[in-house]
């Protein structure tokens, strides 16, 4: 239903002094609410080609009927333009955001596992696409035509089945690969490294025991937590215990490996000082089954903090630590994950030694990109080694100053790892926050040593990939590990014309090793419409996916070109997309009227927010590491995460209905929505704030903090809510708890009072307002875009 939005006619073109009603411009919260009201709680069946799914913010149930659930794949548009010209004309990017291991809610069926026996999954002889619902069986079921490349293949004898009167196989409903959009195959030895079945993966905990980590109490915190946490290692569905092996390394300038073989009375420590050429000093007893070696591991974890209690070593190494992990996996012939807890820039003499190259003078210059570029050399090779061995690196950083995150996080960001950063870590205020992250990270379900291949039907193909991945060639997406929150954004380009009739098909095949050590193929299929009508294309666009694509491509672009250029490109493309719509799809109206496609009517607010994010805003007040961190985090995000990141949820709490289960409806992220007497919760997946208006009613303060008034709140209160036995406290805490539970990362609760200095931190998330470090308000941006559109149209 194309159309402009009412209420803005002409006025935008008018003199700026006339204040617009903020409520009159498109509101994300409104769009979300509308979608929720329309589709929330309903079943979304995937039986129709090119169907636009509900928004990511809406709760719905998916019924797989031949296409992959939107939880796995979302697209920027579900109707591809038939020709490259058309695509060029509208400039709407064609992309899918694939989250192959997305978590499914309990009421949706987990993926079926199909076994095609010794010969392995049935695949098209020419294009190697896997058997899927789109294969056309012909010739009485003896042959089938691949719908990706149109090659006609013989049906293997064991797989033969008669066709019914509709030309469908009789066993259509018995075979997941014929009736479902997503399913898995058991992989045969041909799909394994060296034709050997893989060993179960391993987790290695690598703890920096240099002075600062010991002094902050972090090492003790980790060791204590691991004792309980290791009981909860992820395991295969139905398995009694986790198959994952665990190993421990501590390090400063040298590495300490531990032998925790169950037969030992006490652990043994092996020091390797040869950091120039790292190796693993032991095989047997390094990676062990936690259940078997529990006593020895307990003993070790008890001793580690004491052993280094009086250390004075402040220098660390880093690349050798990762190298050690890779070598360990190599020796054990398995894949796995490294959990590295690191404090400072690696300055000790060793490969990968780093120098401080933070230079704020580069901000807003052509050389700004160097701040984001990793230092070449050692780490580049290391990423390669890691991916080749299936070694994923999760990095927990505890810096007190610049540590060249861009370089240090290079390996994690190529191996499907996560990067967590805790500035000026203190156990009292950040301990719980960090532990939540660690717990989530450790318990995440994931696949190891993965290779993803995206196949498409003829006429278009995948050309570019964004994510925490490694590309050895142009088609295979390699990931040392991929977890339930990691998404890969895939851009498509036309090869040829697409036909409206046959549509477009995407098959994403992911070869990986399960946490139980089995080799599997996970297949996601999606069929899209093709159209030669631009209006149809715009109708099927999805703003959340678009913004995910733009965020990732912009964040990648700043590695190679000045930030300013990238911002310009973003604005231009936004204007172009909208202008094209206006020109070709909208009913004629006054030029002064801003007309937006319905599916993209909140696109400008996201785009504006994106341009105000730390990586894209050139401000010397922002720490280089923080900018790099945000840049890298977003690269692996799925649509839900980017949506939330770019438009935080601002929940009013002062008039919460304590008796209701529901979370109060969020309001728009603007200062105007705050009230002096209100309490607001703001969260964006990375940070969470409780904002207290300066005129907050004392009874609310009393209920939440057990203090008579706002003025009584001390600094110490600023990070936790006390557990009080009253409905409001319970309700607020349960809302926060739920949010923390839901998000992939933990968030550190920060309580800010209106007009206090920390409020600045909070304000930067009010994305409809003018940015703190630069960047326009939503309203101004909209005006600006409108002006651009009009220029394009004339």
């Amino acid at each position, binding site marked *: 239903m194309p159309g402009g939005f009412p209420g803005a006619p002409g006025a935008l073109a008018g003199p700026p002094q006339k204040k617009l009603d903020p409520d009159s411009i498109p509101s994300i919260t409104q769009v979300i609410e509308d979608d929720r009201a329309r589709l929330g709680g309903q079943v979304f069946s995937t039986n129709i080609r090119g169907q636009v799914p509900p928004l990511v913010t809406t709760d719905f149930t998916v019924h797989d009927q031949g296409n992959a659930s939107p939880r796995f794949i979302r697209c920027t548009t579900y109707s591809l333009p038939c020709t490259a010209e058309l695509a060029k004309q509208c400039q709407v990017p064609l992309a899918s955001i694939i989250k192959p291991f997305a978590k499914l809610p309990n009421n949706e069926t987990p993926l079926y596992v199909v076994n095609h026996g010794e010969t392995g999954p049935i695949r098209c002889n020419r294009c190697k696409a896997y058997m899927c619902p789109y294969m056309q069986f012909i010739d009485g079921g003896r042959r089938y035509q691949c719908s990706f490349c149109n090659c006609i293949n013989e049906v293997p004898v064991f797989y033969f089945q008669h066709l019914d009167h509709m030309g469908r196989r009789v066993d259509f409903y018995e075979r997941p690969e014929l009736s479902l959009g997503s399913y898995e195959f058991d992989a045969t030895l041909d799909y394994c490294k060296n034709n050997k079945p893989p060993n179960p993966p391993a987790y290695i905990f690598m703890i920096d025991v240099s002075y600062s980590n010991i002094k902050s109490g972090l090492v003790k915190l980790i060791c204590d937590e691991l004792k309980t946490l290791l009981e909860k290692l992820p395991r295969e569905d139905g398995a009694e215990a986790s198959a994952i092996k665990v190993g421990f390394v501590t390090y400063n300038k040298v590495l300490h490996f531990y032998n925790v073989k169950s037969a030992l009375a*006490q652990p043994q420590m*092996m*020091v390797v*000082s*040869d950091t120039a*050429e790292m190796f693993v*000093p*032991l095989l047997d*007893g390094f990676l062990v089954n936690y259940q078997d070696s529990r006593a020895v591991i307990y003993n070790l974890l008890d001793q580690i903090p004491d052993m280094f209690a009086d250390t004075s070593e402040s220098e660390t190494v880093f690349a050798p630590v990762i190298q050690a992990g890779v070598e360990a996996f190599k020796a054990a012939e398995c894949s796995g994950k490294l959990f590295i807890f690191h404090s400072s820039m690696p300055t000790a003499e060793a490969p990968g030694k780093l120098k401080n190259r933070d230079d704020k003078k580069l901000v807003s210059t052509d050389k700004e990109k160097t701040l984001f570029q990793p230092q070449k050399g050692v780490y580049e090779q290391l990423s390669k080694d890691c991916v080749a061995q299936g070694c994923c690196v999760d990095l927990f950083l505890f810096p007190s100053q610049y540590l060249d995150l861009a370089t240090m996080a290079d390996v994690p960001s190529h191996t499907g790892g996560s990067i967590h950063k805790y500035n000026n870590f203190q156990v009292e205020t950040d301990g719980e926050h960090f532990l939540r992250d660690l717990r989530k990270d450790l318990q995440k379900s994931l696949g190891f040593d993965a290779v993803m291949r995206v196949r498409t039907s003829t006429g278009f193909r995948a050309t570019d990939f964004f994510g925490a991945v490694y590309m050895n060639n142009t088609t295979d997406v390699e990931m040392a590990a991929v977890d339930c929150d990691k998404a890969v954004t895939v851009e498509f380009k036309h090869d040829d014309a697409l036909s409206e009739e046959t549509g477009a098909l995407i098959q994403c095949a992911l070869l990986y090793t399960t946490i139980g050590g089995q080799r599997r193929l996970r297949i996601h299929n999606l069929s899209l419409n093709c159209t030669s009508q631009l209006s149809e294309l715009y109708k099927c666009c999805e703003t959340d996916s678009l913004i995910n694509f733009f965020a990732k491509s912009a964040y990648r672009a700043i590695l190679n070109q000045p930030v300013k250029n990238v911002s310009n490109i973003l604005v231009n493309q936004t204007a172009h997309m909208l202008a094209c719509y206006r020109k070709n799809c909208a009913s004629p109206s006054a030029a002064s009227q801003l007309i937006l496609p319905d599916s993209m009517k909140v696109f400008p607010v996201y785009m504006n927010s994106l341009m105000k994010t730390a990586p894209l805003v050139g401000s010397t007040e922002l720490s280089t590491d923080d900018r790099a961190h945000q840049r890298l985090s977003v690269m692996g995000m799925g649509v839900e995460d980017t949506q939330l990141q770019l438009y935080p949820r601002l929940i009013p709490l002062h008039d919460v209905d304590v008796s209701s289960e529901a979370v109060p409806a969020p309001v728009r992220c603007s200062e105007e929505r705050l009230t002096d007497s209100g309490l607001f919760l703001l969260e964006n997946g990375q940070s969470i704030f409780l904002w207290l208006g300066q005129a907050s009613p004392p009874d609310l303060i009393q209920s939440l903090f057990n203090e008579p008034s706002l003025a009584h709140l001390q600094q110490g209160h600023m990070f936790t809510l006390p557990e009080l036995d009253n409905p409001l406290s319970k309700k607020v805490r349960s809302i926060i708890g739920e949010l923390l539970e839901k998000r992939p990362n933990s968030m550190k609760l920060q309580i800010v009072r209106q007009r206090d200095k920390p409020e600045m931190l909070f304000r930067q998330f009010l994305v409809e307002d003018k940015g703190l470090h630069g960047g326009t308000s939503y309203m101004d941006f909209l005006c600006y875009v409108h002006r651009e559109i009009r220029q394009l149209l004339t």
Partner: protein
Amino acid sequence: MSTYQEFIQQNEDRDGVRFSWNLWPSSRLEATRLVVPVSCLFTPLKERPSLPPVQYEPVLCSRANCKAVLNPLCQVDFRAKIWACNFCFQRNPFPPSYAGISEVNQPAELMPQFSTIEYIVQRGPSAPLIFLYVIDTCLEEEDLQALKESLQMSLSLLPPNALVGLITFGRMVQVHELTCEGIAKSYVFRGTKDLSAKQIQEMLGLTKPAAPGQQGRPVAPQEAAASCRFLQPVHRVDMNLTDLLGELQRDPWPVSQGKRPLRSTGVALSVAVGLLEGAFPNTGARVMLFIGGPPTQGPGMVVGDELKIPIRSWHDIQKDNARHLKKATKYYEALANRSAVNGHSIDIYACALDQTGLLEMKCLSNLTGGHIVMGDSFNTSLFKQTFQRVFSKDYNGDFRMAFGGVMEVKTSREVKVCGAIGPCVSLHSKGSSVSENEMGIGGTNQWKLCSLDHSTTLGVYFEVVNQHNAPVPQGGRGAIQFVTMYQHSNTQKRIRVTTIARNWADAQSQIQHIESSFDQEAAAVLMARLGVFRAESEEGPDVLRWLDRQLIRLCQKFGQFNKEDPTSFRLSESLSLYPQFMFHLRRSPFLQVFNNSPDESSYYRHHFVRQDLTQSLIMIQPILYSYSFHGPPEPVLLDSSSILPDRILLMDTFFQLVIYHGETIAQWRKAGYQEMPEYENFKQLLQAPLDDAQEILQTRFPMPRYIDTEHGGSQARFLLSKVNPSQTHNNLYAWGQETGAPILTDDVSLQVFMDHLKKLAVSSSS
């Protein structure tokens, strides 16, 4: 002093010296004509229960380039309190503490019976002994277990204040920290990477970043403390170490079919040497290396890990087919030299059925005075008892090992020193008494003996430099002084001084005197050492030819004969046995590599160049005792004719003890007569050689291989290969009688050898 025999014996007992000639030819020309050089076997630390050390510093000659020690040969003016150095004739005043001396009140060092005297000196802090165990873990379970037990036992034998350290290796090298509570801690090194000493010390955390201006300073106390993590007093870490050894596992890295385990012996030694070098330079220390196979990776690799490629043999070496030989030898030599410079000695205990690379590694022990012990398994009494004997004690309860020895030789003007052969390295000290003519390790008058014991014996070679026309030197006697500084096992610093003198004799007028002063036993051993020394660098046949030539020349010089008449050839008593020694030496494993692996040859040679005269002679010509009903046990000829059916033979080759039962005796034994009370005497006869063998086994180091065999037994070959093959399958019938046992060999017998020798000696053409 009636005979030279007695004179020689007395000198050996008192000074530990055996000279080839006890009268010295007075000119260079005459000396060279004697064929056997003026030389001696010297045992620096010969056990002298009757020699209590004196507790003061020796008095030195004040001439800067002499510094000889006051000795009984010096002329003393008791009134003027002045003594004249008998080497440089410098007149020296006595130090003030000698004010009270007179003809009747002489200090010990002036008394003739103290030609050998030992001083205890107080110099510097006394350093504890250091024992660093370096253990190969690529052993069979049973072997490792036995080794662990031996090592645990050895802890109780160490002096309580000695420092111990532990390095284990297999594919990796682990240096164990000994002080840790709770978690056992070790530093690990890759077994394939050649590291410099500095890198090793850095990686072990032994070096603190040097503050400016501190470079070159001696080891500061806190740095020594850091190194102590790896080297701890036994009494403190006894329990820890016992546990550590107890928990020692076989190298856990998998060894696939058809491969040898990866053994990083080279790196392990480099780490051991580097550790000691950094932590305790110039302090007595023993690295004890226990190996169960050859080094298979990294620097010092002797053979690859492919089992299908066997370890090098003599054949390969002669064909220049031993790939790793040169590189490995060079590597170990460099290590040995570094170790020697710091006074650390390296023992090798190699127990395996196959070769372990001793050929390449021998220099480690040879240059540093360490032991080499070779056995089949750590689980044998040969190894266990030998190892125990390393820690044996003398009559004072002190360990029979001394460290960091420096032996200096001073000579009177007419004599210069050419070199030494023994477990020592040159200190490159060029003095006026150093000859340009090198024999053995020459070019110096000081040698370092990193480790030595009471039997360590050096061959020292001299040259008479007096010109032919010059008169017989003044005083009529040539003198030599040996000054040996060492660290006693009780950590005292000691200096032993031996001063000896021999008369000059004019070779033209007094040739009979010189001939009768010949010590043929010493000469045989000294020549043998020269031969063995040559054999290390020259082809086997060349060495034999050289030895033969020397023997013929000697016989020509001293034999009594008519030209071209072999039957007239006679040798005087003082030379009569010498040709026989040479005969057996030619057949010995020191010069013959046939039937011996390169490792065995290295092992035999190692022991030959360090044992004293008696043991060396046994090695050259084994001793054979006979036991029979015909009389008391008696030594018999080492000849096939001694092998009789009704005899039991006991042969001692130093390395083996063979008890051989003659045919009849063996039959009786099989029939079990010894069990019957009426044949008690037979039982005693059987027992007698066993008891005698026991006696030898008790004292010998290393423990000999004990072989009990009989006529026709496969192990009888040990006896048959040693005896003179006077009867062989070739001449058996010529002899007619069934005496002795024919030996199936084409080797020449002593008789044939002598016939040839006589022929050549009397011939005018040669």
